[in-house]
C-alpha cells in the first residue's frame, strides 16, 4: 500500500520541472525554491505584521485609559470605566477566569483522557467508531448553543449537586452554599468542562492512536494487564500530546464569552465560596459591558483583554516548555 501511493506521487516531478526552466536544471531548482521560500516567509512576515499591528493598537488604546485610571488596575474591585475619572481593576476578573478554567480543567482532562482510552483501548470496535465520530462533531457545537443549553438544562439540574456539596463539604468554606440560584463560577467551570471535553478527547485520542503497537504488544507479551499496558506504554508516550490537548482546551475555556455570559451571575466581588454567585471572567465582562461603554470604557475593556493575552501567553509558554522537556517521548521525528 505504502509503495503504491509513493509510486503515484513520485514520478510526476521531473516532467513538470523541465517546462518551468528550459535551460540548465540547477538554477531552475533554486528559482522554485526561492519563490516558495519567499512565499512562505512572506506570509510569515505578513502575519507577524498583522498581529504586531493588532497588539500595538490594543496596547495603545489600553495605555490611553490606564493613564487616567483612578483605581489600581491590578487590585481595584470595581469597574466604573465610563466614569470621570474612570475607576477599574481586573482582580475579580483574573480570579474568576483562572478559577473557572482550573475547575474546567480538573474535571475535563481526566474525563477526556478516560474517554480517549475508552475509545482506543476498551470500547468494542462497533461502538468506538460512531462514538468517536459523535464526539468529533460535538467539538464543533457553537458556544452560544452551549449557553442556551446551560441555562435551560444544566443550571436547574445543579441544585441537587449544590445541596449535596453544601451538606457534606460546606464546612470547608469553599463549597458553602447560601442557596442562591446555582449560577456561580463553579457552574461556569462545569459548563466549560463540558465544552472543552470534546476537543481534549479528540486530540488525546489521536495521540493514543499513534502509540506504537510494538510497545503495547511487548508489554502484553510480558504478561501485563490492560491497565498496566496503558500506564506503562500508552500514557508516557501520550503525555506531551495530552498536555497540548489540555492547552487547546484551556485556551477555549479562558476566552469563552457567550456561554459564560448567559450562565454566570456576575458581580465585582471575590467570594470565598465557589458555589455563591459573583465574580466574572474577562471575556464575559467585555461582552456585558461593551454595548453601553463609552470610548473610554471600551479602552478599559481592551486593557482587560490584554491581560487575558498575557495569561494565555504564560499558559502557552508553560505548555511549550513542558513539551520540549518531554521531547524524547514524541516518537514521530526520532
Amino acid at each position: 500500500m505504502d509503495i503504491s501511493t509513493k509510486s503515484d506521487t513520485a514520478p510526476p516531478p521531473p516532467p513538470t520541472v523541465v517546462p518551468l526552466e528550459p535551460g540548465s536544471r540547477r538554477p531552475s531548482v533554486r528559482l522554485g525554491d526561492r519563490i516558495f521560500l519567499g512565499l512562505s516567509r512572506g506570509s510569515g512576515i505578513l502575519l507577524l505584521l498583522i498581529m504586531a499591528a493588532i497588539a500595538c493598537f490594543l496596547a495603545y488604546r489600553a495605555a490611553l485609559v490606564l493613564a487616567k485610571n483612578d483605581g489600581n488596575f491590578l487590585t481595584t474591585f470595581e469597574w466604573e470605566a465610563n466614569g470621570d475619572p474612570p475607576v477599574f481593576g481586573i482582580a475579580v476578573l483574573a480570579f474568576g477566569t483562572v478559577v473557572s478554567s482550573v475547575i474546567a480543567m480538573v474535571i475535563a482532562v481526566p474525563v477526556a483522557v478516560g474517554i480517549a482510552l475508552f475509545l482506543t483501548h476498551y470500547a468494542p470496535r462497533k461502538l468506538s467508531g460512531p462514538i468517536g465520530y459523535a464526539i468529533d462533531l460535538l467539538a464543533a457545537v457553537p458556544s452560544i448553543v452551549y449557553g442556551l443549553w446551560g441555562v435551560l438544562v444544566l443550571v436547574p439540574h445543579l441544585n441537587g449537586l449544590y445541596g449535596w456539596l453544601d451538606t457534606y463539604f460546606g464546612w470547608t468554606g469553599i463549597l458553602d452554599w447560601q442557596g442562591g440560584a446555582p449560577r456561580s463560577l463553579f457552574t461556569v467551570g462545569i459548563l466549560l468542562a463540558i465544552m472543552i471535553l470534546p476537543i481534549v478527547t479528540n486530540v488525546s485520542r489521536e495521540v493514543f492512536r499513534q502509540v506504537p503497537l510494538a510497545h503495547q504488544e511487548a508489554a502484553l507479551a510480558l504478561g501485563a494487564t490492560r491497565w498496566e499496558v496503558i500506564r506503562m506504554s500508552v500514557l508516557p508516550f501520550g503525555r506531551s500530546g495530552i498536555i497540548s490537548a489540555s492547552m487547546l482546551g484551556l485556551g477555549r475555556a479562558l476566552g469563552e464569552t457567550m456561554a459564560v455570559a448567559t450562565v454566570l451571575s456576575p458581580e465585582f466581588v471575590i467570594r470565598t465560596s465557589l458555589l455563591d454567585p459573583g465574580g466574572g471572567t474577562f471575556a464575559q465582562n467585555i461582552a456585558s459591558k461593551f454595548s453601553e461603554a463609552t470610548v473610554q470604557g471600551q479602552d478599559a475593556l481592551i486593557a482587560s483583554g490584554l491581560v487575558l493575552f498575557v495569561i494565555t501567553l504564560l499558559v502557552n509558554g508553560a505548555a511549550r516548555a513542558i513539551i520540549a522537556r518531554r521531547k524524547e517521548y514524541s516518537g514521530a521525528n526520532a
Partner: protein
Amino acid sequence: MKLQRKNRLRALCIGAVAVSGALALTACGSDDTGGTGGGDSSAAADSGNIKCEDAKGQLRASGSSAQKNAIDAWRKNFAAACQVQINYNPKGSGAGVTDFLQGSTAFAGSDSALKDDEIKESSKVCKGSQAIDLPMVGGPIAVGYNVPGVDDLVLDAQTLADIFNDKIKTWDDEAIKKLNPKADLPGTKIQAFHRSDESGTTDNFTKYLKAAAPGNWPYEPAKAWAAKGGQAASGSSGLAQNVKETEGAISYFELSYAGESVDTVDLKTEAAEPVEATVDNATKAIAEAKRVGTGKDYSLELNYKPAAEGAYPITLVTYEIACEKGNKAETLPATKAFLGYIAGDEGQGVLKEKGYAPIPAEINTKVREVINGLS
C-alpha cells in the same frame, strides 16, 4: 484497495449532497414572509395612510432593545406601504447612540435622553446642527416575582428598594407582611436578580427607586447596577427566565417579557389603591411627564410619585434620536417618512396591543411638527 474506493465513493456522495444542498438553498430564498400572517389585510388597511413621499431603500438604525417589539410592529406596516426595509439592531441604548454619533445609522433608539456632551459631539455628524430626542414609546417596567402560593403581591417603593438593596432578606419580612395582610408569605429567601449588562431598563428602574424612596436607595441611578448583593443575569430575557425558574426570585423587566407565566407586583403609590403593571396604567403615569428638553428637543422627565388613581410609576420612555438638521441626504426621506408614521395616529395606535404605552397627545403633536421640519 477495495476499502479505499468505497471511502472515496462515500466522500464523493457526501460532497455531492452538500453541494447540491447549498445550490438548492441559494435558489429558493425569499424575503416574502408577510403573506402567511393573518394580520396581512389589516396591515394593508393601515398602510393606506402612511405617506411614503419618495422614500425607498434600506434604513439602518440601532439602539434600545426595550423598543424592539414596537419597531417590529411598525416596520411591518411601514414595509407594506413603502419600499423601505427598516433594519433595527437592538444592541442597547448606549451602543445605538455611539453608532449614531459615528454616522453609521440614520437614527438611534435610546431609553435615555442624550447627555450634554453627546449633544455637543453630535454637531459633527449633524453637520453643525445637533441631535434631538423624540419621545415615541412608553412602557411599564414590571417587577416579576416567583413565590408559590402568592398570586397577588403589593409592594411600595421603600420595600422594593430594601429588597433590591439586600436589606429585606426573606419573603415573610414584617414590611412585606404589612403590605400584604392577606397573603400567606413563606419564609423563603428572597433572590433579587438584576441585569449583569448595562442597560436603560436598569437606569429607569433605579431612577424610580431613587426618586420614590431616596432614604432607602442610596445609589445614583445609572445604567450599571450599583447596589451590592443579589444576583445578576444578562438581558431582560435572562432575568425573566430566572424568575420563572427560581423559587423566591424577584426582578424587573419590560412588561412584555413577563408573558403569561410570571406574576407581577402591584405597586402602592400615593393613590388609595395599589396599581397593577399594565399598559393603561403606565399610560396614565406617562401622561404626567414634563418636558425638559429645549428647542426642538423633547426629552421628558417622568413623575415617579404620581398621585392619580391607577397610575403605574415605574415606566420608561424611549426616544428616537435624529439630527434636527443635517441628516444624511440619502436616508432623509425614508427617516422622515418612518418617524412621521410612528409618531402619527396609526403608529401610536398599534402600541397598546404590543404592550407599550403611547406618548401623551400634546407632546406627540409637537413631536410630529418637529419631524415634519427635519432636514
